């Protein structure tokens, strides 16, 4: 929705007047208190589960991000079962690996509590693992690239196959999803275009999109660029919590904010809190839990459809 408006505005801007952007040097705010950054997810897939811990830094400090080492990281499910994460390589990535007796952590309907003890402080995050529908199909049509599918610098195809995936949202308001697409095994999503859905729509619509087949803008999120004949398209649909949806909505807004109609910069929410609420050591980031469904297909020009978009 917003993207359409944006495109219209951009087209207008370039044609009518000579607006321009210049990268400038700013020192900004220095020496604000650094915070623990949590970046981690637990899924119902039998694979390594990773929680990355790092330290935030001054906004314009472009030094390498400092990992948080020597922390104790556990995830406890609502049955009281504890999963311990270990920093195997000493790089701040805390990993839990599946075993034959314990093939996965996540299970739909359970709630998971992340507990981190680092630098003498204890932080906690709670997240419920929500349901996810299965993907019915992936369809594509041959077309020329839309404005937002073009990037000549990166050699995106100028014409090719524009794909959509079909799935139906569950009945019941507030199911949230994240969609990740892979082209020949490579994740296509860039973080500033993180694809998320609320019920069957791209944004909150107070129940109006509840229980529908995913709307066209959601279905099209798997084509941030066009595919070519023979490419493998893999789609991963993840359930996320409403809080996690808000996190991505705001995170995406903050990195794409600008222009004539820029909003004031605002705080990106977090679900990680210091257990000691009076401590001035704070945490940011998100601990997410997801059920995942997959689908994949190989682009075959003979199977291309018409009139999809």
């Amino acid at each position, binding site marked *: 929705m917003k993207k359409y408006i944006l495109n219209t505005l951009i087209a207008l801007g370039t044609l009518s007047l000579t607006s321009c952007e*210049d990268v400038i040097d700013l020192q900004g705010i220095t020496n604000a208190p650094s915070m623990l950054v949590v970046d981690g997810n637990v899924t119902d897939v039998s694979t390594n589960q990773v929680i990355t811990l790092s330290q935030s830094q001054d906004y314009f400090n472009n030094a390498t991000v400092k990992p948080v080492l020597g922390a104790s990281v556990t995830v406890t499910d609502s049955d009281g079962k504890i999963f311990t994460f270990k920093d195997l390589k000493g790089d701040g990535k805390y990993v839990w690996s599946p075993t034959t007796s314990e093939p996965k952590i996540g299970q739909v309907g359970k709630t998971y509590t992340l507990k981190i003890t680092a630098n003498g402080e204890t932080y906690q995050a709670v997240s419920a693992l929500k349901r996810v529908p299965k993907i019915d199909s992936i369809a594509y049509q041959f077309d020329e690239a839309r404005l937002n599918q073009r990037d000549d610098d990166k050699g995106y195809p100028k014409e090719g196959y524009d794909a959509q995936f079909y799935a139906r949202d569950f009945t019941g308001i507030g199911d949230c999803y994240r969609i990740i697409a892979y082209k020949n095994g490579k994740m296509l999503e*860039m973080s500033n275009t993180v694809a998320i859905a609320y019920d069957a*729509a791209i944004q909150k619509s107070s129940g109006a999109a509840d229980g529908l087949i995913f709307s066209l803008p959601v279905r099209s999120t798997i084509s941030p660029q066009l595919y070519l004949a023979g490419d493998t398209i893999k789609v991963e649909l993840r359930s996320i919590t409403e809080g996690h949806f808000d996190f991505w909505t705001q995170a995406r807004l903050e990195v794409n904010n600008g222009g004539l109609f820029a909003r004031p910069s605002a705080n990106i929410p977090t679900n990680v809190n210091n257990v000691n609420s009076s401590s001035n050591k704070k945490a940011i980031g998100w601990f997410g839990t997801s059920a995942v469904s997959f689908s994949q297909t190989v682009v075959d020009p003979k199977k291309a459809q018409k009139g999809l978009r």
Partner: protein
Amino acid sequence: MNAFLRNIWVVLLLFPLCLQAQNQKLTVSGYIKDVKNGEGLIGASVFVKELMTGTTTNTYGFYSLTVPKGNYTLVVSSVGYRKSIREIKLTEQSLSLNLELQEDGQELEEVVVKAKREDDNVKSMEMSVNKVEMKTIKKIPALLGEVDLVRAIQFLPGVTTVGEGASGFNVRGGGVDQNLILLDDAPVYNSSHLFGFFSVFNPDAVKDVKLIKGGVPAQYGGRASSILDVKMKEGNAKELEINGGIGVIFSRLSIEAPIVKDKASFIVAARRSYIDILAKPFLTGNNAGSSFNFYDLTAKVNYNIDNKNTVFLSGYFGRDVFGQDFGFNWGNSTLSGRWNHVFSDKLFLNTTAFYSNYDYALDSDLKNKRPNNAFKWSSNITNLSIKPDFTYYISPNNTLTFGGQVLTYNFKPGAATATSEGESRSFGQERKNGIESSIYVGDEWKISPKFSVQYGLRFSRYDYSSQEDFYYQRKYVGVSADFPSGYDLTYIPNTKGKTIQTYQNLEPRFSMNYNTGDNSSIKASYNRLAQYVHLMSNTAASTPLDVWTSSTNNIKPQVADQVALGYFQNFGDNMYEASAEVFYKEMQNQIDYADRANLFLNPYFEKDLLFGKGRAYGLELFVKKNRGKLTGWISYTLQRSEKKIDALNNGNWYFSRYDRTHTLNMLAQYEINKKWSFGANFAYITGVPYTLPEQQFVVEGQVYPYIPAGTRGNFRVPAYHRLDVSATKKNKKALFGKGESEWVFSIYNLYNRRNPFSIYTRPNETNPAQTEAVQLSIIGSFVPAVTYNFKF
């Protein structure tokens, strides 16, 4: 409610009868008009030489003077017109006297006319008021050569915007929604075309512009900061007149002519942009068939039935259209009907009834290619109103105004239909109704030749009801990740149309003028203004999508109290006028938005709002040269505009988004000869505040900003400055060897400065783990333009 309305009408209708009773002296009254086109002259002076007293004409050119019986010399004058002197006999009965004044053209230079009201600046009650003549506005070097009223008033003291291309304007530290923009008495909700680059007013159809920033008379109300009163031309009542212009962005044409000479006339004026036509060859593939254009149509007819009755009907219709397959359009329309009635030579009535509408619509499927997968969104606000205004000319020293207004609002803040694979769902914000009723009385009293006061009282009332069978009540739940404002909503069932909340305000108004010498005066004023509708806008510049919302049980009306003090002095036989004013304004129930507020199509938007107070104060200096080859002005404003809202900035005062510390404007127009004239203007404005993140953090390889909750405006965009120039060459003849014409050459942003509009931060495009700051300039180079104007 009904009883309340009935009372208003009874009072309004009986009042004139009571006044008729006392009739001791005799009265001369009538209309003063322009001899060339029959347009009523606003603010012309009617002066009785023997008594050294006088009055001025009202908005319709009507005057009334009540004096003791006798023979008098009446001197009628107006700036830019030849003085007219009449001997009148007021011995037996009151007199009706209509006069026409001749424009003070170049050829009359030998008869140097000293129009009395040149010292209006010092002598009148008005302070914090700027009147700009269309003649002056037309000479200001303009962006792309297009004469623009709203951009022109930004050169006045106390008026700013958030930046180039932003729609609307800010007056004395108030928000864009705090200006009541009236076009022939009907409110205009979005004054901009093309987002904010051009205003909706066609300069060829505008007669008079008045901006009231303070000391607002009791007859006006409904907004907290200012009144921009735009009056349309009536149309040439003497002969056919055609005006037009061909510019870079759009072209204009207006036709005015008498229907019955000196009795009835009309004007029709139209404009259309043609960027889309010029751009057509460059749009291919999916972009083919794109349209972006705007147009507007302004029309007015008037009929002078007899000496006592004149009726007017005027309308405006404008629209901006953008779209490829995806379409977006917005526009205002207004229709006002007016009846001027002279009850007696001392009592004048203007009754206005109007309709006003602002709407927009978005459609994801303009060409209807895939009706099974579409998204449609529309929003509007509609007004219907009736408004009688009486003027009672008690004596030359005492004029009473009184009247009232009933203004109904119909809000459809946003309704959307989403269709996915043929299944449709509708959602949006609930529709609301409002009735704003008011009565007022005001008096202008010249206590002594040196001292005069204007005082009045306005009573306003607002009744809010819902068109749905429910409404929401805000309740405090505490600030959290889910409720950044700290509020949630409770659903409350309600009978459709039943009044949910009523607000009432008494709005006192007061101004005084004390003449400290022949050419100087001190003025002071106080006013309280209540505002019952609010623009929900959370972006750097207000967008056409922003929604006007009613005051509700959760949203209280904004109330502003302003005091102002000024010193006014004219020099050099009124060739120069100068003024210095200070003001202080306090605003209650100001609105700001919680972090992550969602204002569009969100039925629960009221929980995303934050309320607090605002204040603004400043100093305005103004020097203007009125006559001679070189004319123009210099204005300087020192100003602060702040808000204080509990959840924001730790509950401390913070700068509003439109806070501008220094504003310097210089405007000069130089007439070399009858053929050539030049114009130049310079603007310097302190940058607006913006918010920089404190920390960065990385999630999934992408860097994100950390901004502590509730941070507002911790940095400031660098200053803005710009110089524009223009040259006008007048030709004796226009097309087909008739009329007159001119070429206007202009350069906007002469020294090619990339003026910053805003600064924002983003991850580096090639390395999303790195951060950078970006300065956005809306107009990043100089903009030359040529316009051809004609008149015949």
